[in-house]
């Protein structure tokens, strides 16, 4: 999971060092993540498992720059994101992160094409260039024929494919998937997982996924277990909880 170049510097795409996340609930402080270290290489498919409240989604939010840790640092592709301003984080997310949500979270009044085009509206691409990118992304997820359909006209599995197309259309540094199959039947879930595997194997995407489903987690290169805010490795390839 970790790697070093000849200079002794790590070559990991994502480096997490000693992060804590504490929430305040009234007078009470709740430690969600404690001293967590993690390295993820480019092109790796990582799964996080754990019981409810173990901090899986919190970790994903921190990695996706949707939230900031109480302590520690997160570096992605050389950018230390923990001390960026809110505005900078927003710009950074647009360039580096693709989000895949459990409930797809498509905009219901936009077609599949328009939903996928949304992240591209933040770029300087021309309309024709955006069209090419959207069509490519929808082709990758196998929905080129459904691009003018609205979300209500698609099945759950198809909606999630559109959401995946939206996540990959800007070619981000990595994808964050929060229970991507949690709302799907087994067949659709398998199809989505096959798609995600294809993105990793054939397109070199880095994917970090939260799941409750061991069958889904098994398809990742490596699985981490989060338990009471501490990351525990589950697999032979990884070193978790210890920085390189």
């Amino acid at each position: 999971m970790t790697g070093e170049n000849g200079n002794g510097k790590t070559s990991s795409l994502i480096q997490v060092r000693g992060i804590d996340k504490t929430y305040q609930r009234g007078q009470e402080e709740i430690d969600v993540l404690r001293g967590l270290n993690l390295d993820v290489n480019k092109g790796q498919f990582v799964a996080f498992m754990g019981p409810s409240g173990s901090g899986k989604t919190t970790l994903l939010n921190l990695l996706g720059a949707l939230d900031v840790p109480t302590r520690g640092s997160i570096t992605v592709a050389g950018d230390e994101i923990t001390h960026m301003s809110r505005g900078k984080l927003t710009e950074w997310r647009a360039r580096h992160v693709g989000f895949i949500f459990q409930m797809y979270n498509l905009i219901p009044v936009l077609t599949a094409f328009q939903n996928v085009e949304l992240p591209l509206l933040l770029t300087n691409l021309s309309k024709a260039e955006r069209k090419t990118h959207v069509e490519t992304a929808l082709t990758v997820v196998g929905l080129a024929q459904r691009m003018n359909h609205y979300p209500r006209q698609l099945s759950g599995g198809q909606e999630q494919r559109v959401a995946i197309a939206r996540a990959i259309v800007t070619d981000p540094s990595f994808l964050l998937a929060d229970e991507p199959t949690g709302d799907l039947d087994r067949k659709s879930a398998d199809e989505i997982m096959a798609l995600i595997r294809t993105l990793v194997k054939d397109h070199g995407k880095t994917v970090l996924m939260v799941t409750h489903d061991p069958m889904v987690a098994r398809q990742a290169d490596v699985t981490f277990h989060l338990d009471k805010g501490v990351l525990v490795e589950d697999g032979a390839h990884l070193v978790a909880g210890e920085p390189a």
Partner: protein
Amino acid sequence: MKFSSLIFANLFRKKARLVLTVGSFAIALFLFAFLAVVRAAFNQQADVASADRLISRNHISLSEPLPLSYYEQIARIPGLAAVTHFNWFGGIYQDEKNFFPQFVIDPEHQRQVMPELVVPDDQWQTFVHDRQGAIVGAKTAKRFRWKIGDRIPIQNSRYGPLSTWDFNIDGIYHSQNPGGDETQFWLQWDYFEEKVPQDFKGRVGWYTVKLDRPNSALSVSNTIDSLFDNSAYETKTETESAFAASFVKQFGNIEGLIMIIGSVVFFTLLLVTGNTMAIAVRERTGELAVLKAIGFSDRAVLFFVLAESVLIAVIGGLLGLGLSALAIPGLSSALAGMLPPLNLSATILSMGLLAALLVGAVAGIVPGIGAMRMRVVTALRRI
């Protein structure tokens, strides 16, 4: 604009709600335009009033007469270019709703005092030599399709028992002032004086004085009023614009009434639209959070909310103003007996659109700021 598909898609998301909110704007803007033209119609009388004319009327009220004998005394005051007198005739043409102002005039001095109301010389000469002659303003002539040579019966009960007065249309006047009154009907003093009962003879409604220099208005009006101090018919002399303003006040505080109604309407509209936008933002919390997650800035989210609110305002505003442009000419004709002529000006249309824009922007700002400040993580947790 590349965000237009998102903004319009959101705008048309709840069609019934959109129709109701746009409808509220349309009705409010229609009402605004109507009130504004009514206000403008009343104020127009003061706006077109000349600065170098004074009106001298009975101190008690405009409905009390002044003796004709005052004419010579007023005319002798230095600094006057000309003096003339008027009476309110107050007749009815066919039906009470066919109202138009009718004045008994003094043909000898009328054109010197009111030079902006132009009558062609040949028509004027016919009028001067025709005791039953009448000059009518272009708008009233057009309204009743009168033409020169027509004989017009007008009933009157103001001066004695109800009787019919017949007049010959000898001429049509036009105003040289933009927005000037072209609705008046003038009849001859001699014919009037001859026909009214004894009690009304030798009495005029008011005197209109044209000054040599506008800056002598105060001294001349003081001179006129002091001339008739302690007489049976004391005068009150004021500039034509002050007179027009006091005439409007007879109808009540039109300006204040219109301002109050307008303010209430726009405030209500603000609440309606603000509520609509607040509901819309609340319903879309998850979607706005996703937009932020994928890289849309807080300002972009604020812009989307404001754009939607302003679009509702502009669509509703244009509908309402368009409706008023279609309806006000008809309303003006229908209310001709009760209100001065109503004209929907470009200024009123621009002000209406500006007011709609402002209401739209203000209504969207609070929910927009809420959406802007929303934390993505908190919002996503609610989905």
